[in-house]
């Protein structure tokens, strides 16, 4: 089969574009955690309005169960930064072999985390399609794939849900970086 002359170049460009969004790459120097936003070595906690507010451990996350909505916290769970909607994080455990390479580099033992605020109009991405294993925004039905770095699938959002790198250290589930993208609506 004869390739079009520029197909290798195009493939390389596509590859480069993908690489730039890889979760595990060092984020751009200019990007830092916003005030109160999750930062490296934060814990993640269920908020005060949850039935059992507490710091989340790896054992709390059951394979393929619906996501939990958590917020950045100190290690004790006494200071949970839950006042801003922009801090809400969707966290769930998938099988490692379901994750693409980029997502795998961000995940900790199959546990992945994403911003919980929709990139379309800022609604909370509060629904979960258990059959398709997709995040679903109740406002305008945008869908995102947690196994492919939060990739946009359908609806008006057209931008991925920013991923949040995780790590497990001494049995604790911790934040390993900052959100990989702007949180919330494309321009409010």
């Amino acid at each position, binding site marked *: 089969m004869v390739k079009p002359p520029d197909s290798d170049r195009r493939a390389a460009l596509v590859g480069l574009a993908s690489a730039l969004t890889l979760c595990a790459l060092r984020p751009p120097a200019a990007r830092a955690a916003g005030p109160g936003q999750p930062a490296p070595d934060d814990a993640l906690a269920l908020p005060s*309005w949850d039935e059992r507010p507490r710091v989340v451990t790896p054992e709390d996350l059951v394979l393929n169960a619906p996501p939990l909505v958590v917020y950045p916290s100190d290690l004790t769970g006494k200071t949970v930064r839950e006042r*801003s*909607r*922009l801090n809400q994080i969707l966290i769930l455990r998938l099988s490692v072999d379901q994750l693409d390479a980029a997502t795998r580099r961000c995940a900790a033992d199959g546990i992945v985390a994403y911003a919980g*605020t929709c990139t379309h*109009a*800022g*609604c*909370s991405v*509060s*629904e979960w*399609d258990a059959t398709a294993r997709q995040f*679903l925004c*109740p*406002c*305008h*039905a945008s869908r995102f794939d947690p196994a492919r770095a939060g990739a946009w699938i359908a*609806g*008006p959002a057209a931008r991925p849900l920013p991923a949040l790198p995780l790590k497990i250290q001494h049995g604790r589930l911790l934040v390993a970086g900052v959100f990989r993208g702007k*949180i*919330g*609506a494309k*321009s*409010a």
Partner: protein
Amino acid sequence: MQRLLTSFFCLALIPTLGLCANPTLPYRSVTQARLEAPEPDNWLMYRRTYDSQGYSPLATINTRNVRQLVPLWSFSTGVEEAHQAPPLVNDGMMFITTPRNQILALDARTGDLQWRYQRQLPDDLFQLHPTNRGVALYEDRVYLATVDAFLVALDARTGEVLWEKPVENYLDGYYMTLAPLVVNGRVMVGTSGGELGVRGFIQAFDAKTGDALWKTYTVPAPGEPGSETWPGDTGKHGGVPVWVTGSYDPATQLSYWGTGNAGPWMGDARTGDNLYATSVIAVDVNTGAIRSHHQYHWNDSWDWDEVAAPLLIDIQRNGRTLKSLIHEGRNGYLWMLERTSKGIGFVEAQAYVKQNVFTRLDPLTGRPEYDPQHKPRIGQRTEFCPSIWGGKDWPPSAYSPQTGYLYIPANENLCSALAGEPAKYRAGEPYIGLPVANIEVFPTPEGKDHIGELQAWDLAAGKKVWTKTFKSHNWGPVLATAGGLVFSGGTNDRYFRAFDAHTGDVLWQQRTNSGVVGVPTSYAIDGQQYIAVQSGWGVDAQRKQEFLDKAYGTKTQVPQGGVLWVFGLPPATPAP
């Protein structure tokens, strides 16, 4: 060069200040007398006149020459989402709003920008309906109700912000999308947020100072009349938003507002009539007191907001003038009510699209009885027609005193199914009791023929006289003119059309940049008549399209991005 730099500085660097002005036009104060009797050349409020008829007495563009209509100028708004606001015009100065609470003030003759205001919205705003339906004008000020629940007053000449007043807390789900209503120096607004557990209200502010004057909740407080229609504390987050501008009757100083559905959506979560949900309420503009009401349907379970304000129309019937309130319900019935000294009275109602919920209306009160098979509830999937978006949603109808016809942008052959679940309240988050997967919208077999309609009703005779059908659903607000014309867009093929008001024949059409969900208006300068409308598809029209695409296995592309279009007869064409 100086001017270029100034423009750049204004547009790019300090857009929130509203100082991006190059104002060159004189400005005539908008008095109460002018609002009550606007000159034919001007369009000074949401529906032009307080009676909400959406009718222009201009006739230079008419059935004989409308085929020659051409675009004279246009203006890109730079914004996506639904452009629903009417272009208001006061002596050649035009004001439009766009999503994200931008105001553009333009020379209505040339399209030259006079000033631009862009509100800086908070990053954590939850925008269920990113839209705006226009400004209000009074004296030398412009009023904007914002999606972060502020009321802003600006200098109409320059765009300078004069004051901003917080109306409610957006973090609790309150937001505003309607054009304010101004009467006798009072600026009235209502709140959106029925899906977010708000308690609806209408509030009045002093037009000069912004001081709050009165606030009337659409859900009575415990102990107030009507509170007995809400069990327990269900009224606390009972919804009943007000998100479309009310009508006003100067003779009685009563404003008439449509109200939204109660929340959460399933009626069995709040057993009772749930006053004043899905009603028209007569509100005294001086005190805010609710003088009278009529509830179109009780204990809503279909998401049938009845927010479109009734049209105030004098109808000759049985040898007398009936001072009517006309409302095309989202519930699929066309309601004729009457303004009497005793309050709002029921006259008659009939279905204008297929409806399978009401089994009977009480002949004296109009209160419907329901088929329980079609009343959604918790724990069960229930089908009903018309769909959750109803026979007609917010897009306003128009009435022509010339033909005596009411023009309804309707949707037929579309039904829904809902499967309710118990709802849990959390401030600022959805409170409807239904995950997305439990909301269905689907066409009936007849939907293959058409969904969208433009209907004309002879109100004196109480009969439909013509129907124009469209394969697409219809989200087009309507303008009627004395030229024997009706203008409307609303379909997914991006057309804006002129219809013969007597026959419904399409006499002219223009394909635009996007879908037309904007309110069309007409105005004149120095004897030349213009038709103006914004084209910019989004929000509910887009969402409904997704349901239809799912049903038909299609993928309809309606591009987004707003453009204001202004049409007129070519300059060389002499007026007949």
